């Protein structure tokens, strides 16, 4: 009886009595969610256009952030380093297409998936070789990202909003809106979706697979760079960041592998769910539930909506 009370009633009583804490927790959750969304977005982009589940997306985030910081450490001005990093991400996309995708064209998806594993370990080794394995600090100030916090009076108390988080949310929103429109309503976007649907039909209307793959991996690289900057500005830049790729999995299950809005909403739900769970239900289990709670949410969704919230309906004519 006591336990039931603690699980089903007490947390909500707490939420009601201290609304400012609730708002603060929600905000923290949303912010974490935005970053999960960004990572998931990288996955979705590549999956949508090539049907490949790109395991290397997580390490691409680290690699992009490392390159940016590493270049700056070698005396390159911040914005020049940013431009150079974008260039590096393009070269990476180009190399992936040439060395991995092209030789493996028409192979089963699982082969391509395994190839992205290989890419992951290559990037870890290569990154360490060039920039060293130690933890670095993101050059947030040099990139003119705001720092500090604003305290907002609301819900009967003060809620503290980190400026960097606000910036992250704004940048992520712009990015997502742009990509969504791009995918849905433009020539290149249509070509991307066309390639995902049928290779030979895409070829027959004159879409070059090679070009599309480079574009989509480059776009995923840009998303990775943005994620790397935002995440790095909140913590540090190190290879530990790589595990956030695993956080994207429940987001993808929730949102559907092919949906950009799904990645966003999924990310927000996971972020908020995680923080609320940790704050209100965590103490019951000696806390630490943040690390697995997301997977439980995903599992529940998987039972009821296997294609995700916004995933493409599985259409089959019989």
């Amino acid at each position, binding site marked *: 009886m006591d336990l039931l009370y603690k699980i089903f009633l007490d947390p909500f009583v707490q939420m009601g009595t201290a609304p400012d804490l609730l708002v603060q927790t929600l905000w923290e959750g949303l912010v974490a969610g935005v970053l999960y969304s960004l990572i998931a977005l990288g996955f979705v982009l590549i999956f949508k256009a090539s049907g490949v589940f790109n395991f290397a997306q997580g390490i691409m985030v680290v690699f992009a952030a490392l390159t940016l910081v590493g270049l700056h450490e070698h005396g390159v001005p911040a914005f020049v380093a940013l431009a150079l990093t974008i260039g590096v991400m393009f070269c990476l996309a180009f190399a992936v297409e040439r060395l991995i995708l092209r030789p493996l064209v028409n192979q089963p998806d699982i082969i391509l998936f395994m190839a992205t594993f290989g890419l992951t370990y290559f990037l870890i080794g290569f990154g360490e070789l060039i920039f060293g394995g130690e933890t670095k600090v993101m050059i947030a100030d040099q990139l003119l990202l705001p720092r500090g916090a604003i305290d907002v009076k609301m819900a009967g108390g003060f809620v503290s909003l980190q400026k960097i988080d606000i910036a992250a949310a704004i940048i992520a929103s712009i990015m997502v809106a*742009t990509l969504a429109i791009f995918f849905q309503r*433009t020539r290149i976007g249509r070509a991307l*979706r*066309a390639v995902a649907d049928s290779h030979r039909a895409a*070829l*027959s*209307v004159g879409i*070059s*697979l090679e070009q599309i793959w480079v574009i989509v991996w480059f776009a995923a690289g840009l998303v990775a760079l943005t994620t790397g900057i935002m995440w790095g500005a909140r913590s540090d830049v190190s290879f530990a960041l790589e595990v956030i790729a695993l956080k994207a999995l429940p987001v993808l299950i929730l949102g559907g592998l092919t949906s950009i809005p799904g990645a966003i909403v999924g990310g927000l739900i996971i972020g908020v769910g995680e923080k609320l769970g940790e704050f209100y239900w965590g103490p019951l289990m000696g806390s630490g539930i943040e690390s697995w709670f997301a997977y439980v949410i995903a599992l529940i969704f998987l039972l009821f909506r296997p294609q995700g919230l916004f995933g493409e309906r599985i259409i089959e*004519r019989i």
Partner: protein
Amino acid sequence: MRATGGREAAVGDVLLSAENVSLSFGGVKAVSDVSFDIRKGEIRAIIGPNGAGKTSMLNVINGFYHPQQGRITFKGETRANMRPHEAAYGGIARTFQNVALFRGMTALDNIMAGRTLKMHSSFFWQLLRYGPAMREEVEHRHRVEEIIDFLKIQEIRRVPVGRLPYGLQKRVELGRALAMEPELLLLDEPMAGMNLEEKEDMSRFVLDVNDHYGTTIALIEHDMGVVMDLSDRVVVLDHGIKIADGTPDEVKHNQMVIDAYLGVAH
């Protein structure tokens, strides 16, 4: 364009010629030493029993397969190994035997995808979907709407093609190929699996495309009635070898063709 007398009147210069084309997969000879030409403005049929190498021939023409021997000359240019998107760029469009559409996309988007090569605004504007990219979308949408009207598929514009019945999918696929404004249109069994009414509709569209747009058409078809009605000239393949080439009437009375279709007593 066409003189009222007969279909031959529309036929002009050679648009594409295949010379001594041979293609094999491992030990299997799909096409051996086949030569024929396609003339501007004509409807050219490629027929033959199953496994005769018709689809292989089509795949060679638009660059899906690269023949081990022989040459393809298109618009006076001989090419060795052309890739499919280069063929598309050169003005060759096609449909597939077992419909290859972008299943998750709407009929409209499928046909718009056919305009890919005609659109040129840069990645940057595309990303913003503003300025040149926007103007381009609108302009090409006009052309696509014309095609939609032409094929009478107005009401299924917004339907994901995976949900459409087979006959309509074939029509959307034809629309996508037309959107490319091709000089040469390759149709791989455009009437396969259709009922009589759908076949008549499709035949009408094929003739209209040829009439209105002056598009040269090469088609593979099993229905002899359709072939005889539609085509100006017919090439017959059997086991990868060309056994006849000529007007429908000539071909119909060719002993080798009759043998190939009906079998010979050994």
